[in-house]
């Protein structure tokens, strides 16, 4: 099914940061992303480079995690989610 995408432009530095994080994932892992299917890490790296819808979602996910590291991540995210 159609997924929304974030039209924000991503810098090369950010792409490289996300790719470096993806490269730490073991090669036996695939990531299931809803109706888009499941993707190998190599697929995801290519999509982050291209910044298609999947690449943008993976970038968004990794950046959300990195931003959370400066906080008390789980409790703040729990509170934010509970308030939705």
């Amino acid at each position: 099914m159609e997924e929304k995408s974030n039209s924000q432009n991503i810098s090369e530095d950010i792409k490289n940061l996300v790719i470096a994080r993806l490269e730490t994932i073991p090669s036996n892992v695939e990531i299931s992303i809803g109706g888009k299917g499941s993707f190998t890490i190599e697929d995801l790296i290519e999509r982050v480079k291209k910044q298609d819808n999947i690449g943008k979602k993976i970038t968004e996910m990794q950046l959300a995690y990195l931003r959370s590291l400066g906080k008390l991540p789980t409790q703040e995210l729990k509170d934010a989610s509970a308030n939705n």
Partner: protein
Amino acid sequence: MLLLITRPKYDLPTHYLFHWAGLLINEAKRRRVKIIDLDKEKAKKDKLHSYLSKQPIDIVILNGHGSSEAVAGQNEIILSTGNGTYLLKNKTVFIRACDAGTILGKEIIEMGAKGFIGYIQPFMFPIDKDCVNKPLEDKLASPVLECSNKVGFSLIKGKSAMQAQNDSLDEYAEVTDRYSSSEAINSFLLPILLWNMASQVCYQ
């Protein structure tokens, strides 16, 4: 209590959800909760709408692919905005599908459902390629799917949507903390756990 659950199975993500939702069925049976299991080819729109209109169903759990305005069963849309949401009046609904919390979930509540839990982003989980034939033994998928399953387990115990949401978020917090420790392996799971945790919403 009467539980209706859909479990399509036609690709890798639905194969996993089919088996993990099976654990909810086992728990419901153990608690003597009556179950309508629309699995595989039974996960069709006509069957779902017929059961919802004729049976006194309390809890509805839909597993499958989704979008902001629709959720699919076995290769077809089984519920969408303006098409069947009124059938969920007075029921507690959990939709484990991408994005359905954005628009569809709000309409379900506007049409009189007791509560709704779903996701406002794509629902993601990791898969160990060596475990595809035994998804319940996949130790990479299990942290995410256990946290998500917690919603269903709590609803089956008779808890409200908000209580089930809080139980699930507590589980996410506990699992996330476990994978955050310096000795933890597979810390690459953390962004996925946090993503699904932040994407899981409850309306009531």
